[in-house]
């Protein structure tokens, strides 16, 4: 017995009735979402603390505030985004009306991960609702606290004929994916991304896949080690390293490494104190499975900083590894934890080669006082996004899309990009019936004079019109 059939049928019918299309309805849903965030802030922070030992600060800046911003942005811009977009016309269509109509796809599925369980579920939801779709949300079963809040409390704030939360693990998700959706946005690992895309193929469903990879962080010799260490450490250990755009590993010269290590130690101590385990600002690993995986990685290379762990709390200390081989597990998989390996390279070119030998990452970071170095790294590599002398601060900018390339994903969202992602851009050309005489040129038979006229007229300009 398929538990999803009825729900999906209901949502499809609601979409077919046209309920979700008027701007008022969409705005009401967005306002409902905004109210949910405001009225349940404590509840959400509690869930995040339960799931990831996330501090209120991190919960605010990386989850709740981001969602609120997206809701506000969508509400403010909804009418502008929904408007038909006029397009340039050519000579022959001057009297016509040519525009792009943004339309909802229909039934959208959002499959969310556990590491930013509020952000990565609700920010896509904002876009899907603003674009006028009916939405099925599949939060991660691994972040149980947040899953519960989303399943039990969120639906009360939204029109439940057009919105549903479905629960379950890999098996249920597999069953869910057998159904037809009109768009799927998935955030997670490349391995599961392939499964999602293969399932989407059966119904020719377009997808946005927000995946991951190993995000390189190049540290040039020409820089201030303490500044770099502050920034790298902050972005690495934020959310206990469980961030898809976190710097995954550092590439630098042995000389730089020697200067970086004490600076990193200093940053870590300043951030989390002498005993990071007792710092309220350091989170925990999501579950035992990932804890074990990360603990095993601690035996790669040599522990230069940290290395402590405590299974009872799923605690892993902010750690830096050195003398790491490329073939070791810590350099083979996305770390997704508070472990930072340092690989030595003899300069920018070797770093670029190293990076280009591997899959395109979701993010790429380069630290240097020299603009030239930063720009060269930018020009000769590819990645979802790029940070120069900075970590993933661009995530706070709704004018910058979040999306991968190659193995790190396809498609993008955030801000207006979300609205566009969840909309079909329908090309519309409305001609008038009059002036039919002008059209005579395009109809057969193509006599001598017509041939000459066409060739002349179209040879003169770069329009693609018969």
């Amino acid at each position, binding site marked *: 017995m398929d538990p999803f059939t009825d729900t999906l049928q209901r949502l499809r019918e609601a979409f077919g009735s046209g309920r979700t299309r008027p701007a008022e309805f969409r705005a009401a849903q967005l306002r409902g979402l905004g109210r949910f965030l405001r009225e349940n802030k404590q509840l959400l922070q509690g869930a995040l603390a339960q799931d990831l030992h996330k501090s209120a600060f991190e919960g605010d800046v990386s989850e709740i505030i981001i969602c609120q911003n997206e809701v506000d942005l969508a509400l403010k811009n909804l009418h502008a985004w929904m408007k038909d977009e006029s397009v340039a016309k050519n000579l022959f269509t001057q009297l016509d009306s040519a525009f792009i109509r943004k339309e909802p796809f229909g039934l959208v599925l959002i499959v969310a991960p556990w590491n930013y369980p509020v952000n990565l579920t609700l920010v896509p939801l904002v876009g899907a609702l603003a674009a006028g779709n009916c939405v099925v949300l599949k939060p991660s079963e691994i972040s149980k606290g947040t899953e519960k809040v989303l399943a039990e409390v969120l639906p009360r704030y939204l029109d439940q004929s057009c919105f549903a939360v479905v629960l379950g693990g890999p098996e249920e998700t597999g069953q869910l994916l057998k159904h037809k959706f009109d768009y799927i946005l998935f955030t997670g690992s490349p391995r599961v991304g392939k499964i999602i895309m293969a399932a989407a193929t059966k119904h020719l469903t377009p997808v946005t896949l927000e995946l991951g990879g190993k995000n390189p962080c190049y540290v040039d010799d020409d820089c201030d080690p303490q500044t770099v260490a502050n920034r790298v450490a902050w972005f690495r250990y934020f959310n206990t390293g469980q961030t898809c755009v976190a710097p995954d590993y550092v590439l630098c010269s042995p000389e730089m490494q020697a200067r970086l290590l004490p600076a990193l130690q200093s940053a870590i101590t300043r951030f989390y104190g002498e005993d990071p385990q007792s710092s309220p600002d350091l989170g925990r690993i999501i579950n035992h499975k990932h804890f074990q995986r990360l603990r095993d990685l601690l035996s790669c290379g040599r522990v230069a900083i940290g290395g402590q762990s405590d299974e009872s709390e799923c605690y892993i200390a902010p750690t830096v590894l050195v003398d790491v081989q490329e073939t070791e597990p810590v350099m083979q998989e996305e770390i997704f934890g508070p472990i930072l390996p340092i690989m030595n390279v003899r300069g920018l070119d070797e770093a670029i080669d190293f990076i280009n030998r591997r899959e395109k990452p979701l993010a790429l970071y380069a630290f240097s006082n020299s603009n030239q170095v930063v720009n060269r790294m930018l020009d000769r590599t590819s990645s979802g996004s*790029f940070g120069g002398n900075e970590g993933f601060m661009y995530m706070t*900018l709704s004018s910058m899309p979040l999306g991968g390339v190659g193995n790190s994903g396809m498609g993008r969202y955030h801000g207006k990009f979300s609205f566009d992602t969840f909309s079909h851009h329908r090309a519309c050309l409305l001609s008038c019936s009059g002036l039919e005489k002008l059209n005579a040129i395009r109809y057969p038979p193509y006599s001598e004079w017509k041939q000459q006229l066409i060739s002349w007229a179209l040879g003169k300009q770069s329009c693609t019109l018969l």
Partner: protein
Amino acid sequence: MEREVQRVRAAFRSGRSRPLTFRRQQLKALRRMVQEREKDILAAITADLSKSELNAYSQEVISVLGEIDLMLEKLPEWAAATPARKNLLTMLDEAYIQPEPLGVVLIIGAWNYPFVLTIQPLIGAIAAGNAVIVKPSEISENTATTLAELLPQYLDQDLYAVINGGVEETTELLKHRFDHILYTGNATVGKIVMEAAAKHLTPVTLELGGKSPCYVDRDCDLDVACRRIAWGKYMNCGQTCIAPDYVLCEPALQDQIVQKMKDAVKEFYGENIKESPDYERIINLRHFKRILSLLEGQKVAFGGETDEATRYIAPTILTDVDPGSKVMQEEIFGPVLPIVPVKSAEEAVRFINEREKPLALYIFSQDNKLTKWLIDHTSSGGVTGNDVIMHFMLSSLPFGGVGSSGMGAYHGKYSFDTFSHQRPCLLKSLKREGANKLRYPPNSPSKVDWAKFFLLRRFSRGKLRLLLLTLLGVLVAVLIKAGHC
């Protein structure tokens, strides 16, 4: 094949295809190819589709030349970084989105417009800085052969390759990894392409098809409507992905439509249609027989003549067609126009929405409100009102499907964007580290408030005004004090 794919990839890695000057040079070479070898290209197309040279030129070559010129003109603008709006936190940083090539693009062409449907995507892929492998349709063999001969003579031979072959070769090709695949064809093969792409997480643009409905309202200029429908339907012998597939209209209109279309067909192709140089033939025997079978049991109001030897099917109209019949189950892709009577626009909308989303929707009506209503209550890749096909011709409009008619779009800037990765970049300085202390742990409630100030949009604007007023007040106080001194 393995070697060729690797060669193209290695060529991309060399970075040669990236500088704008190189891309312009290749596009200009492509234009030279089209101009200098026009005769060869037209000969190939006409051989494949029994098409007149003028039709081949106006239907295919013109679009290609137009697209090349558009790319050349707009390339500097489109390839440039777009600055992104910043927030307070990033005020002093550089934030922009930089378009980049994806890598190696695979373009799988179709046989119905074998030149433009292969070359137009190629133009976009080159403009975006990629290396490209082109796989023309083997069914339009002459064009496939000609492209394989001509492209290497004008374009960089390592970066742009033509690989020819049938189902077996294409399957083999699809096992390789590409950075984008653009496929034009049918949904069945579209799924095969997407499935292969999923193995490598390769993004795809699928230009598929379906049954494009054509709604004819009683309130419209029927003469003009029928002429335009006849033009779009019988062009290329109906083998056009955006041809009006079938007509929906009130029963009373059927006879008039048949008559007026008959007149238009006579005007276009003369009394003896077979003799007209402007009327094409069906591509091969398999499709000929397929279309023939769609006529079984139907009321042929006009046309219906066929000649297997030349694969000729006359411009045909069927009336009072039963929605359940074979001709209404698959994309016709031939010169057969079924008319399905409906009682009203509402019924037409219901009819359309019960079916897969089409690639195109056509509406003939003088009533603008009705047209808008029809657009609002349906979905399709694109729409042309009071005409057919034309939305394809405007390069400022994206060309693509939705649902089973496809995903993604191209033409003009949409081609450039489809074949690019738009990479967001945030460049900061290593100075002013003091300002960052705000964000580092250990955290405190006051830090949260500051975070809200910088990040929360509503909050920051109100507070910013307060801050500015305060500063103004301080400034005024200072000025007054200075005045006193």
